[in-house]
């Protein structure tokens, strides 16, 4: 019954992306092209990140938390932000509204991320006879990641695509963007430095992503009001 388990975990990992696409107006406005373009940008960004990591990072024997290495990894992680910037601003799209643009970009980005990072372990691991909670937790993590990515895309669109922003909100926008962007480093610190259990880390990610999504939504609506 292990193919069964694989199908369950795959549904949990990739299902939400499909559901998000179908349930929101994204499907009506046929933003599939945008999503695919965002996914390709993600691919390129990841490649560049990998090259940088391989060049600058030292290989450590043990799994402990090394501050300088982690700072370096966080710095390279900002390449992600740069990639999102590129996807949001530089690519040409069919005329779709701001609202939908960031959602489509975020969705494509998160889907590519889930596919690249989670499909292979799922295929190799979840089909085995041995049962672990790991793959279900990975699915939950992928959900949290989706929320985080869309929040980051929303904040990015606020930062770069919108010209008029109430000045009080701007620092909050920057702060939230910084937090969301450094989320991978925070999770790796929790896992390695504090040696948290995988399930605890995933719970943290989930709650953090929901919190950040809420904050982003408030910020977004706050910026929305003048243009309305």
């Amino acid at each position, binding site marked *: 019954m292990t193919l069964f*388990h694989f*199908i369950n975990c795959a549904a949990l990992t990739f*299902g939400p992306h499909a559901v998000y696409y179908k*349930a929101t107006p994204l499907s009506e406005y046929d933003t599939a092209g945008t999503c695919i373009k965002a996914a390709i940008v993600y691919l390129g960004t990841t490649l560049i990140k990998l090259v940088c990591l391989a060049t600058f990072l030292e290989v450590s024997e043990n799994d402990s938390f090394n501050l300088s290495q982690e700072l370096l990894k966080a710095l390279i992680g900002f390449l992600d932000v740069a990639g999102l910037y590129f996807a949001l601003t530089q690519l040409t799209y069919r005329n779709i509204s701001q609202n939908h643009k960031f959602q489509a970009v975020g969705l494509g980005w998160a889907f590519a991320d889930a596919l690249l990072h989670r499909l292979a372990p799922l295929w190799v691991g979840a089909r085995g*006879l041995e049962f672990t909670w790991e793959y279900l937790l990975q699915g939950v993590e992928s959900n949290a990641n989706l929320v985080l990515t869309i929040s980051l895309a929303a904040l990015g669109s606020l930062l770069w695509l919108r010209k008029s922003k109430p000045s009080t909100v701007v620092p909050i926008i920057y702060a939230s963007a910084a937090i969301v962007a450094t989320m991978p480093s925070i999770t790796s610190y929790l896992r390695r430095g504090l040696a948290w259990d995988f399930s605890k880390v995933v719970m943290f990610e989930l709650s953090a992503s929901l919190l950040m999504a809420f904050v982003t939504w408030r910020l977004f609506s706050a910026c929305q009001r003048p243009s309305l």
Partner: protein
Amino acid sequence: MAIGVRDRVLWQAAVALVALVVGVVVADAAAVVEVYRMIQYDLRGVPLGSRRAAMNHHASSNLAVPGSDLSRTVIILPIAEANITMLNEYLQTKRLLGGLLLLFPHDYGSPTDSDSEGDGDDNYAVVRKHIAEVEQWLIHNNLPYPVYFAYEDENLINILKEVVVNDAAGRPATAMTGGYKLVIPVADAKKLPPPTITNIQGWLPGLRAEGDNSILPTIAIVASYDTFGAAPALSVGSDNSGSGVTALLELARLFSRLYANPKTRGPYNLLFGLTAGGPYNYNGTNKWLRNFDQRIRESMEYALCLNTIGSSSNQLWLHVSKPPDNVFIKQIHSEFVDVAEGLDLSVELRHKKINISNPRVAWEHEQFSRQRITAATLSQLETAPELFQHTGGISDSRRMVNETTVGQNIKLVAESLARHIYKQQGKQIEVFAEGSSLAVNPAYVRAWLDLLSRTPRVAPFLGKNAPIVSAFYKELAEHTMDVSYHHDTLDSTFVFYDLTKAQLSVHQVASVTFDLFVMLAVGVYLGLLFLILLVTTKGFDDLIGALRRPPSRKVKST
């Protein structure tokens, strides 16, 4: 057109890639253990032993767990706690088991320090006796399920504890409830071609008197070196056959020193023979003897066979097939008794008549007697063993062999032989005295006993070029002359099947109900997500509209 072809090629490549990836076997497990399979053989066409090899069932800890389907469970039993009556009952009532995994204690078979003797040894003797009984039951029955042996290690002990707890709580491991699954993915065992048995012989030629041209008489010293047991990969036979072989090699060494100097060379040729096929009615010995020239056979004055002289006992028996009032037998016996007195040992004579029509050959000397050569077997076994009894199986381990006793018995045989060869019967001489250059070498004895206790020697799995066989050859070649192999095929009444070792993977599997539950949960989650996103982004009216559309279309068409 070009695009179409390219698409097709891409599609085929994708399919091939998917097929390749699907074919990858996943094998991560909670534990991977080396296990040893029980023997599978046919005796005169009757199938015996464990007839299956592959195992893929859930684990259980005993036979009486309520609610478990035993034909789909593997029972894990520490061998000391195996209840033979219950297992036998299951067998006789033709109830099927999914499999049997018998566990040895972790340090079973390894020699202990001399400090920890006493209680440990008594306990060990009891355990060993029980293991011997289990082994006999296993060997002589047809078991239609896979049987494996393993040594307990941390992993297995923990797994067994959990299984016991689950069974006690009434939650046996099945497909519905999940639990531990034992998997050994092998194909069924295949018949082996008739095995080669290899006998090794070496000569120490005696000294002919000046002007004497007759053939010197020969004394043969023989020991069978192969074993048979419930687990061929574990049948090291330390006492049975291990002690005899070690004794023979040490005797060869001692007498080669004596014979090296022409002044001390006796008027007898000494023939040392290491024979195979012992457990199978000494088939090898039979074929080896038939191979000899008639003249050599006639020149054999007598043959001494060594069998099981290793345990801590000072009682030995000299088994003969000629009637005990035969003069020659009396002489040989008295030689032994004379020496035995001085060594605090006792050697009794035991007579067993040979029945030519009975194919069962219980002692090696009987094969000599059937060729009209006077022979005797020196052994610590009092009665003749039955087929596959005392053949160096899993219950015969290094711990029960006392190297001091082996040394003493070697001295006994050596001195008795010396008295016979140099015609010093009745005289008080000591040829192989302690401290002399002819003393029995305890280090040599220990080294060979240790080596033999690490080498399983079941003939069908030994092969022609087994390292232990060449080791025997080299050792004999060091001390004797004209060392040669004699290869032959084992009697066809015994047919063996291959596969003696395998890897067991223990997986912890989740039950089907769990998978169904997860599927339900994920389905509900995705459904809820869909609804929430639909409502929040498109609004509630759209949802109602989506549900209402089919009827409205009907209305429109009419």
